[in-house]
């Protein structure tokens, strides 16, 4: 078996690996680092790919999504694998929206406040300086006048404005005592609001791929290496505490390889990281690494996605949504009171409506008057929300024996919602319905989407003791000296908002910790 040696080996190449690696390289430009990713490299900023996305709605990385038949939903609640993650160089940041909301202090104290789930071993104040750094790094465009959560630094960029169709919903918010806010969103200065954010022609939104490409292009980092198409098979240790290497497959040659390292960081997301730990059985770890208390892969938590749609019988202003992301949001229902009442929600206006596909009508052969008619005939708007989820021990991710297209084991999700979940959903949808009614729109849809793993967390959760979690407050796997996990998987609980900003902050904190450990 081919053997190579490094100081740090990362498994995964998304926001976590790229951010930790960058933090290490800023401290030691010559650090010997290997980054492994199971997926392929898809060219970024390629003009032909961008045009094809624009005219055919076809992204060059579509084949890197989970596909039908590759995974199994085994619980009583259906779990969708569609569009949830991207297995490629850069990870799911290649397709992320860039929404950057901080967690709130109560999100770190769930058990203390509600008697359910878990507390984080760190608090908001610990993470606050890292949130500031992460916002700078990701180039978050936000509103400094907001006061949803305490901040010590302003946003690095001004916010995107509310769009014209937001105005109606803002008025409804005000009638109901809901405070409107501008969605903080990660875009670099070069953003030209093309609305093609899922494949930006300029690289104007952070992705792990762009971040790593920049590090690789920087001539100072001569010992940084990234390998694509290299699924990690297992971790091997020389003792219970000491991890020695990552065994991986070079899928381009079929060769089995070992990457030895002083430090190993698993950054493979909330699906693959627990599966890798579970698969790494040995005489030291009979149930998989870090799994002596059967916590690896447990407590799956992911946002239920709530929607209420409304319609009115004209669109005289010919409004359509002119950005490909929401600009209006509110955290009025993202509060400790609703947390205690079963779950908070983060409200935002749908990023796609109102909209009529003018080009599709023209393709059908419609004349100008025939296109104008549906454009002006009605207007649809939708209020959406993420619900703060409650992870349960019974809900689990595990590996199936067969491999997927990238050479990783297929995934099984055992996921079941408790009966009381529907009551909670109904209460929250009622709150949202009031907004649509206050706009004088007719409600046409009130629903929760099929559960998926877009924002999945908690499958290798942090805990002060091995009985409470898989990793400690420094993200080191309990019972090991040199194995770390950096992923949404370490969040003991989720929150009502997107997790990526918090993961970026956690990654910077881990980078600092590893730098201090080396020092």
């Amino acid at each position, binding site marked *: 078996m081919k053997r190579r040696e490094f100081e740090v080996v990362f498994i995964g190449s998304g926001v976590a690996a790229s951010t930790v690696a960058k933090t290490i390289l800023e401290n030691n430009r010559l650090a010997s680092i290997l980054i492994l990713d199971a997926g392929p490299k898809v060219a970024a900023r390629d003009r*032909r790919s961008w045009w094809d996305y624009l005219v055919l709605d076809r992204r060059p990385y579509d084949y890197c999504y989970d596909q039908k038949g590759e995974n199994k939903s085994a619980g009583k609640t259906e779990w969708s694998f569609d569009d949830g993650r991207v297995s490629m160089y850069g990870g799911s940041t290649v397709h992320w929206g860039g929404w950057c909301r901080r967690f709130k202090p109560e999100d770190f104290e769930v058990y203390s406040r509600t008697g359910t789930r878990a507390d984080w071993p760190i608090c908001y104040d610990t993470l606050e300086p890292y949130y500031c750094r992460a916002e700078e790094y990701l180039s978050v465009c936000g509103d400094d006048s907001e006061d949803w959560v305490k901040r010590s630094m302003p946003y690095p960029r001004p916010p995107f*404005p509310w769009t014209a*169709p937001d105005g109606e919903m803002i008025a409804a918010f*005000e009638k109901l005592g809901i405070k*409107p806010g501008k969605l903080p969103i990660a875009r670099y200065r070069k953003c*030209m609001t093309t609305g093609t954010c899922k494949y930006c022609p300029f690289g104007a939104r952070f992705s792990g791929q762009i971040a790593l490409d920049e590090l690789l292009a920087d001539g100072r980092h001569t010992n940084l290496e990234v390998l694509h198409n290299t699924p990690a098979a297992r971790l091997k240790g020389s003792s219970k505490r000491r991890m020695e290497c990552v065994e991986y497959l070079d899928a381009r040659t079929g060769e089995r390889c070992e990457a030895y390292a002083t430090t190993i960081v698993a950054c493979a997301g909330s699906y693959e990281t627990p599966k890798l730990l579970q698969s790494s059985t040995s005489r030291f770890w009979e149930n998989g690494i870090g799994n002596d208390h059967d916590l690896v892969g447990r407590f799956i938590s992911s946002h239920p996605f709530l929607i209420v749609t409304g319609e009115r019988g004209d669109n005289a202003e010919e409004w359509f949504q002119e*950005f490909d992301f929401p600009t209006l949001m509110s955290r009025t229902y993202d509060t400790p009171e609703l947390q205690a009442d079963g779950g908070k929600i983060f409200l935002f206006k749908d990023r796609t409506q109102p909209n009529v596909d003018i080009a599709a009508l023209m393709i059908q052969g419609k004349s*100008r008057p025939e296109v104008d008619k549906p454009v002006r005939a009605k207007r649809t708007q939708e209020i959406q929300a993420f619900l703060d989820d409650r992870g349960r021990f019974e809900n689990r991710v595990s590996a199936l024996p067969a491999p997927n297209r990238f050479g990783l084991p297929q995934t099984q999700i055992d996921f079941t919602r408790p009966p009381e979940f529907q009551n909670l959903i109904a209460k929250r949808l009622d709150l949202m319905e009031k907004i649509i009614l206050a706009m004088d729109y007719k409600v046409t849809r009130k629903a929760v989407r099929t559960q998926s793993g877009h924002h999945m967390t908690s499958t290798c959760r942090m805990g002060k003791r091995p009985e409470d979690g898989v990793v400690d407050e420094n993200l080191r796997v309990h019972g090991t000296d040199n194995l770390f996990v950096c992923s949404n998987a370490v969040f003991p609980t989720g929150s009502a908002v997107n997790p990526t900003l918090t993961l970026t902050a956690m990654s910077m904190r881990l980078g600092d910790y590893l730098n201090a450990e080396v020092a």
Partner: protein
Amino acid sequence: MTEILGGEYSNTKVSAGLLPGDIQQLTAYEMEMLWRLFQEIGRTRSDSLNIRSEWLEFVEAKTSVAPSYTGEYSNAVSCAAELLRMYGDPEGYRRLLLDHGMAPDASPLTRIAHCKTYVVNEFIRVQVAKEGFKSWKGSNYKGYIGGSLYNRKPRARVAEPLIRIAEAEGE
């Protein structure tokens, strides 16, 4: 019922996949014919035509990188020529764009269907995204590159100033 569009050439049966053309280049005449077709899309429905450089970049991207559309573009020029011979100018274009009788999702199994699916439909998307949407009062659209976000002029139509709750509470 719409009559069959075009003549013998246009209705020749072909397979649904991209027509071959990798080894040839478009002639200057073919490029001008394609540009005329693109202009007609704007003339029939949405007016804006001031985007030749972006259209050229689109055609360059579609013909210089695999899978090449060169064969499709050559075919579209031949179809358009036949339509103009049969129906005159601009009636030939009008029929192709407005009275084609082709279902948008049908598999393209004739030369005229290829022209519609691979060329006209994609040109329509480019035309609307790059300029045409403006005739529906919009300031921004998917695919539109209007300049930096930090221009003084907002990139999209924005909401009117509103009284914030916090201000109202302070009154």
